[in-house]
């Protein structure tokens, strides 16, 4: 029995049995910090390691969390699965209003518990009919897809059938089927400004590129979409972000998986994805306009030096250089060299360095 309902009830049953057998009820979970992620050579992604933490009713916090977990399972089983309903992450937080003692203090708490349930059951939140608020981001490029919507199937060409904003990635990417394409590569872009710049400059046509707008830290659906473009269509992926520590984490979550969702890395991460820029070396080489690193930036960079996902020589060198420079640059800083600079000079140069053009 591998259906979501029986897996969720299995968790409830184990807690029940612990009560009955006089064992202090508890759950065992992998520790979810950067100290406990390791490289899986099997899938080339970062996954949780062997460290486990025990959550038990012995402490007041553990007891409250487990009570909340039980309430959450009850909701998912009775309302979602048996009642065939769905809620967003935010709605679940609000639903707990009536749970008194088990009420979530903030949405981060319910989000985390849902991730915990994913880890224990080995399923994804979509299996529990839980969806994020955030829509996936947008896609623009020579790609024809078929989307199964609630109102029937739609065939869409991601250059010809859409407006300037691009095709919106649905939250469940498994409803999308790739039909055909003329693309040679996928460029994932952090900021809306740069995404629009590339479209305006016709970069997608000139380089046969599918542009994906990441909208900051990318949603799961966006990462899943990129992963599928990479594996199903065999397209190389390059990630183009600002040149600051937060953007490197965006790249890392696309390429290696996020620490928060390392249990899903095999579904979401695109280990082949390359980091295009802005690299700290670009700041020097292209003499970009910069801002000073804040204390928070520096702290984040130092923390990345010890993050196993940034353990490669390339990243250690780049990060160390940035710490020395004490500078960061936005991707739109290229505008200072003229609006065409990024598509005529920077991207072609970087893509040929990466062997993609």
């Amino acid at each position, binding site marked *: 029995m591998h259906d979501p309902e029986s897996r969720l009830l299995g968790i*409830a049953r184990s807690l029940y049995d612990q009560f009955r057998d*006089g*064992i*202090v009820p508890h759950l065992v979970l992998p520790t979810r910090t950067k100290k406990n992620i390791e490289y899986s050579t099997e899938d080339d992604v970062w996954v949780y390691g062997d460290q486990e933490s025990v959550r038990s*009713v012995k402490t*007041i916090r553990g007891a409250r969390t487990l009570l909340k977990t039980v309430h959450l399972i009850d909701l998912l089983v*009775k309302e979602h699965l048996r009642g065939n309903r769905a809620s967003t992450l935010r709605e679940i937080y609000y639903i707990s209003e009536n749970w008194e003692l088990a009420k979530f203090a903030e949405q981060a708490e319910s989000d985390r518990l849902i991730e915990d349930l994913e880890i224990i059951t080995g399923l994804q939140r979509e299996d529990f009919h839980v969806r994020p608020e955030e829509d996936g981001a947008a896609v623009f490029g020579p790609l024809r897809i078929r989307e199964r919507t609630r109102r029937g199937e739609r065939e869409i060409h991601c250059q010809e059938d859409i407006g300037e904003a691009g095709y919106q990635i649905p939250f469940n990417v498994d409803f999308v089927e790739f039909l055909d394409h003329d693309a040679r590569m996928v460029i994932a872009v952090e900021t809306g400004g740069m995404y629009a710049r590339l479209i305006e400059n016709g970069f997608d046509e000139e380089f046969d590129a599918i542009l994906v707008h990441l909208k900051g830290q990318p949603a799961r659906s966006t990462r899943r979409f990129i992963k599928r473009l990479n594996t199903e269509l065999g397209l190389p992926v390059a990630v183009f972000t600002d040149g600051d520590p937060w953007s490197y984490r965006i790249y890392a979550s696309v390429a290696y998986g996020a620490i928060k969702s390392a249990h899903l890395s095999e579904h979401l991460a695109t280990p082949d994805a390359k980091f295009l820029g802005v690299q700290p070396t670009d700041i020097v080489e292209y003499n970009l306009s910069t801002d000073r690193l804040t204390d928070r930036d520096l702290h984040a960079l130092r923390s990345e030096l010890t993050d196993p996902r940034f353990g490669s020589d390339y990243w250690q060198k780049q990060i160390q250089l940035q710490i020395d420079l004490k500078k960061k640059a936005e991707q739109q800083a290229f505008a200072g060299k003229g609006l065409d600079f990024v598509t005529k000079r920077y991207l072609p140069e970087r893509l040929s360095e990466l062997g993609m053009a």
Partner: protein
Amino acid sequence: MDTAEELAKQQRSISVAEFFEKNRQILGFDSAPRAIITCVKEAVDNSLDACEDAGILPDIFVQIKRAGELYRVIVEDNGPGIVPSEIPRVFAKLLYGSRFHVLRQSRGQQGIGISAAVLYSQLTTGRPARITSRTSPEMPARYVEVMINTAKNEPEIIREEDIDWERPRGTRVELEIEGSYVRGRRQSVYSYLKNVAIVNPHARITFVEPDGSTEKFERATERLPKRACEIKPHPSGIELGELTKMLRYTERRKLSSFLKESFSAIGNIAAQEILQISGLDPSMDPRSLDYEQSKRLFEALRRIKIKSPPVDCLSPIGEDLIRSGLAKEFRVDFIATVSRPVSVYSGNPFVVEAGIGFGGELDRNGRVEILRFANRVPLIYQQGACAITHAIEGVSWKSYGLDQPGGGLPVGPAVILVHVASTNIPFTSESKDAVADIPEILAEIDLAMKEIGRKLRRFLALQETLSERREKEEIISKILPRMADKLSDMLGLERPDISRVVARIMGNVLVRRDLNQEDGRLIVRIEIENNTSSQRSFKLHEIIPVEAEDLDPPARRVDMGGCYDYQWKIAIRAGERMVLRYTVKSHLQRMPEAVVEGLEPEIVTGARVLSDA
């Protein structure tokens, strides 16, 4: 075109007043709400210093009034007053003061403060400062309206006369300024005065706000702080540059007397030792030392052990008064204080004192409140730039029982007071908002924080035993029953018995009785589980109205007339379980609860406990 020459033509000397006119932010007048606080601060500092110098218990009256679009700031004290001829220069000439060249602890040092306030008033409103001062009951009070000539940095008297004044002695300053008045916020006149009251418990401060409401900060002691005396620089921690300067400008003509006369804490023996280590001739002229020789002297000063600088040049608040100051203004459950020994940086003695208040009505979720003081003056702005804040942030508060998410200031219901007293407080800027990061000072604050941290930890450990008990109560009385209900409801199973889990969590002795009907007989099974951490010995009683059979292990039977009391003597080690059994022939309607004798009621679950009496 020669740029340098062009520029040189444009250069002309500017007066100090003009300079400050263009740089008012460095004096603390950079924003409208701040300007009012700074004006009050400068006037109150002066009042407190003057009272202390004269040995008078300060009685300070502060009033802020609305005057149309402007505010009128009035500060009045019962201090010694200022002689009439001095009034204009004290209030309307920058860098004029009596304390600048003297090495002892006082609030004001540079002689900028009050004149800067006067200047600000003049710049924003064009009005003169109005000063009333009286030095003794025998003299009339002098009233002066004065402005600063900003080009010359000289006072300009607008009006002056002798007047009647109800105070026998004291000074009153009245300034009209453009500003904006903020109530209640952390950075407000009210909180500034509250902080002044905390570290100056010998002062009485009355504050009247624009809406007429009056707050009185009563004095908590009649004892004046000890008067600070003047001292010479202390040799330890002096810098080479300073030493060279002293060597050059000394009036002594012999190195040995230079050492003895220019420094505190150097006597004959110490001087000899220093000269020996440095290999310098005691009779040489201090001014004739070359760089190499000064450096040797400098090294020698560093190497030898010299007694600490005299404390009497500093005026610490004292642990008792810090405690009463905190207790007076905050409702807390716990206060700890510490007073560090005197220490030295660059030849300047300083002392760090600190206090922490915890619990009570303080905010549980925010960052702790920091009260920073330098020479008894509250520091309100630029908390993030201050050595006090940095030192507090550098402590790992987690080990002392406060959260510190993401580093930085700890979080929790605490207020931390730090007072740095010195003959020369190293501020980061003229506006005297923050103490500079001097390693010696950081280290002393760090030690002070660790000391109060240890005291806090001891207090918290005690509290924890109590709150652990309370939390466990919540777990067993609220959370676990709900969890069991929800689980059984969801799974469609019978509600599980949670008593064993409860006893485990409570670390209790569990007594659990199972009853089973079988062939018209009642089979009783009593499970005893010792979840405490030590061996337990007690008696277990089953008091039933009928005779029991098949007792395993056997029990002593006491006939109680109509009732039988079966008694087992139990000795059970920590973590062990045992089972008692017996059967009863007849069908019983009701079984009374099992009774335990010889254990404290708090550690027993599942049975009634017989008290020793």
